[in-house]
C-alpha cells in the first residue's frame, strides 16, 4: 500500500510541466497537480511515522533481530513459531473473547440508548453528554477509577469477596468491562446521529401500521443505520485485536497470562524478552487481521453502493 504514495510523490513534478497550458483540460490538470501538493505534508509525515517503520517491521519479522545488534535472515521461522507458541494461542483466544464481548455488550448498550434517546422529548442532550463523558477520561485515570471501585480491600471486591483483577477467572472480563465503560458512550453518540437522519415519516407510517417501539426498531431504525452499524462492527473487530492500554495499565497480561492479548504479548516480546524479530511477526499478523476487516468493509461498501 505504501508504495502507491511513493509513486504519486514521484509523478507530481512531471505533471507540473503542464501547468503553463491555459486550456480547460490543463486547468483540470492544474488542480490535480496542486492536489498532490496539498497532500504532500500528510504523505511525508505518514511515510516517516507509519509507512517506513511498518516496512522495517515487515523486514524484521523475517529475522532473529533482538532489538540491538545484527539481524539475521531466518525466513518464515518466526511465523511458524507463532502457530506452535501456546502464549500466542492463549492471547489470540483472549482477543476473540474480547471481540465477541465488544460486538455484543457495547453495541447493544449503544443501540438501545440511542434508540431510547430518539423516543424521549426532553433531556436528550443531557443524557448524551453524560454517556459521553467516560469516553473523554484518559485511560490511565479510568484505570485508577475502576481499580479503586473494584478494590479487593476497600471497594466492591471486599463486599463480594472477589479480587476482580487479581483472579484469573474474572480478570479478563473485568478489564473488558472497564474498557467498555469508556467506550459505549461513543457508540451512543454515533448511532444517535445516524438514527436522527432517518425520516420521521417512516416511523409515523410504521406506527400507523400498528408497529410498536420494538418492531419499529427492527424494521425502520436498524435498516436505516445499516452502514453505520456495519462500519462500527468492523471497527470493533479491528480495535478489539489492537486493544492494549487497559490490559497493559491494569494487569500487564496477568495474573498467569489470563488477560494476555496479542498486543501485550508483542510488547513484552519486543521490549522485555528482546525478541524484536518474533514480536514483529506478531505485529504483521495483527496488521493482516485489521487489513482483512478493512477490506471486507470496503468491499461491502462498494457492493451496497453506500456513500462514505
Amino acid at each position: 500500500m505504501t508504495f502507491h504514495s511513493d509513486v504519486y510523490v514521484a509523478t507530481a513534478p512531471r505533471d507540473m510541466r503542464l501547468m503553463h497550458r491555459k486550456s480547460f483540460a490543463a486547468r483540470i490538470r492544474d488542480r490535480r497537480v496542486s492536489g498532490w501538493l496539498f497532500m504532500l505534508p500528510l504523505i511525508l509525515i505518514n511515510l516517516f511515522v507509519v509507512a517506513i517503520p511498518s516496512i522495517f517491521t515487515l523486514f524484521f519479522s523475517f529475522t532473529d533481530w533482538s532489538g540491538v545488534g545484527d539481524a539475521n535472515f531466518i525466513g518464515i521461522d518466526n511465523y511458524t513459531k507463532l502457530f506452535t507458541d501456546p502464549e500466542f494461542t492463549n492471547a489470540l483466544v483472549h482477543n476473540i473473547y474480547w471481540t465477541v464481548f465488544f460486538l455484543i455488550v457495547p453495541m447493544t448498550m449503544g443501540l438501545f440508548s440511542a434508540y431510547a434517546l430518539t423516543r424521549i422529548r426532553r433531556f436528550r442532550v443531557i443524557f448524551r453528554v453524560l454517556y459521553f463523558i467516560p469516553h473523554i477520561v484518559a485511560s490511565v485515570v479510568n484505570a485508577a477509577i475502576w481499580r479503586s471501585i473494584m478494590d479487593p480491600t476497600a471497594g466492591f471486591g471486599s463486599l463480594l469477596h472477589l479480587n476482580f483483577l487479581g483472579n484469573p477467572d474474572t480478570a479478563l472480563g473485568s478489564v473488558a468491562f472497564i474498557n467498555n465503560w469508556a467506550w459505549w458512550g461513543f457508540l451512543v453518540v454515533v448511532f444517535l446521529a445516524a438514527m436522527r437522519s432517518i425520516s420521521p415519516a417512516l416511523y409515523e407510517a410504521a406506527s400507523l401500521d400498528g408497529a410498536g417501539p420494538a418492531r419499529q426498531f427492527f424494521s425502520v431504525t436498524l435498516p436505516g443505520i445499516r452502514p453505520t452499524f456495519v462500519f462500527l462492527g468492523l471497527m470493533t473487530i479491528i480495535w478489539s485485536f489492537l486493544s492494549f492500554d487497559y490490559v497493559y495499565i491494569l494487569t500487564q497480561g496477568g495474573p498467569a497470562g489470563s488477560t494476555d492479548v496479542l498486543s501485550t504479548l508483542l510488547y513484552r516480546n519486543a521490549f522485555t524478552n528482546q525478541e524484536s524479530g518474533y514480536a514483529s511477526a506478531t505485529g504483521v499478523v495483527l496488521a493482516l487481521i485489521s487489513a482483512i476487516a478493512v477490506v471486507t468493509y470496503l468491499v461491502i461498501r462498494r457492493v451496497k453502493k453506500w456513500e462514505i
Partner: protein
Amino acid sequence: MSITSTALLTRATRLRRRTPPKGTDAGIFTCVSLTLLALFAIGPIILFFFNSVKTSNDYAASSLGLPKTWEWGNFLDAWIQGNIGAGLINSAVVVAGTAALTLVVSGCAAYALARLDIKGNRLFINYLLISSSLPTQMFLVPLFYMAVQARLYDTQIGLILIYVGLFSPFATLLLRSFMLTMPKELEEAARMDGANELGVLFRVVLPNALPGLLTVALVTALSAYNEFLFAVTFIQNSDLLPASTTFYSFQQGFTQNYPLVTAAGVIMIAPMLILFLFLQRRFISGLASSGLGG
C-alpha cells in the same frame, strides 16, 4: 433503502406532509433505563471525586462512600508532590502543537481529497483508512530507533510529529467527509473570480469548514492529551513528561496514598472535562455527523 421503507415513506407523505414532533412519549421502562445508564456512566467519576478528598484511613475503610471529612488540601499536596503543574504545561505544549499541525496537514489533504479530482483519490482514501487502523505495535520499535537517529527521541517536537503522523489520517477522513457536505457553489464562484487553489482553500473552504476544523482540533487534542503508549515510550526526561505519564509515574511511586493519587487523577481529567462541557454540542454533533463511514 429497502423497498418496504420506500413504500412506507411515500405512503406517509401522502397521509400527512407535516413533520411530526421529534420524539414520542416514552414508557417508564425507557426513562428508568436511560437514568440507570447515566448513573453507570457518571457514578464512578463522582466516587472518584469523593475518594480524592478522603483521608487515607477513610479511603482504606471504604472506597465507595461519601468522605467523612473533606480534605481539600489533597489537591494541593497532589499538585506539589506529583509535579502536576509541569505535566499540564508540557501537555499543553504537546496538545497545542499536535492540534495545530494536524489541522494544517489534514486540512490541506482533506481539501484535495474532497474537491480536487486527483488521480488515485479512492486508493489514497483506502490507504488512509488502513493506515489509521494499523496496530501501533506494527511500527513502534523501528520508529523508536528512527527517532533516536533523528535526535527526536525525548523531545516534545518528536512526540508532536509522531502524534501528527498517528492522528492525521483519521483527521483527514473526518474533514474530508465534512467538506463533502459543504456546497460547492461558493468555491466555483471564487474560482470564476480568478482565485487560485490556495486562495479558495483559505478564503472560502476553511472559513466554511470551521465547525469541522474545531471538531478535528478537539478530537486530536483529546487523543494527544490522553495518549499513553507513545508518551511513555518516547519521553523519558522527567521535566518533559506530559500529564498522562506524570500521573502514571506518580501512581507508581505513591501507591500507598490512594487519595493523593486520586486527587492527581481528578486534576488531570479536569481540563478536558471543562473543555468538553463548554464545547460539547460542537464536539459531539461534529464527531457524529461526520458520519464515521455511516
